[in-house]
């Protein structure tokens, strides 16, 4: 996994909390910075993809590892 500037652990949270927490964290970050989100909600895979497409933030990586989902989002 590439380097990141901030990490958000949304493990155990269900829809729509991982997205809402990610959005809030991104708001406080600078353009070009990278956020690493960890989630356990299987729905978050499609949701983060859709979030990135609709907000213009880039989803650089999306993968599952040991029952957890990892996302790298670059703030636009």
């Amino acid at each position, binding site marked *: 996994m590439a380097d990141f500037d901030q990490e958000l652990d949304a493990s155990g949270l*269900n829809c729509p909390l991982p997205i809402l927490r990610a959005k809030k964290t991104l708001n406080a970050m600078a353009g070009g910075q990278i956020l690493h989100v960890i989630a356990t*909600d299987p729905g978050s895979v499609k949701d983060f993809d859709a979030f990135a497409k609709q907000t213009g933030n880039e989803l650089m990586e999306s993968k599952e590892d040991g029952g957890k989902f990892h996302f790298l989002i670059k703030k636009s």
Partner: protein
Amino acid sequence: MEQKKLAIIATKGSLDWAYPPFILASTAAALGYETQIFFTFYGLQLLKKKLSLEVTPLGNPGMPMPMGMDKWFPVLGMTLPGMQGMMTSMMKKKMQSKGVASVEELRELCQEAEVKLIACQMTVDLFDMETSEFIDGVDYAGAAAFFEFAGESDICLYI
């Protein structure tokens, strides 16, 4: 690109039906939508400072019941005093264990994200409600005000 708009009418005042308007509004706001929820009739319960929302299995054959309760307690059993309170607390526990946010939390997230919450003035008058019962930051308006926003919305939902 012009900001997209979502208009929601929330008409129901039970615990289960409190979720769709707040989940969709908070998510839409996170996606950059300008969002309004117009609360009318029983939906006004969702704006009370102190929420006392319940869920009822009555008239709701689709509600999954824990421990096969639907087999042991046919419909009549669900009318027993205390049954609704019990189902409500079981539902809340289940939601908490699955990491589902509380209605209060989702409502706060909506307000933080500047979702506009509008109470139907007519319903407030009809049910002799006091505006002091409602959370701060609520606007009071009527159908015409709703259409001003809804008429320009990209998505309009009646819940």
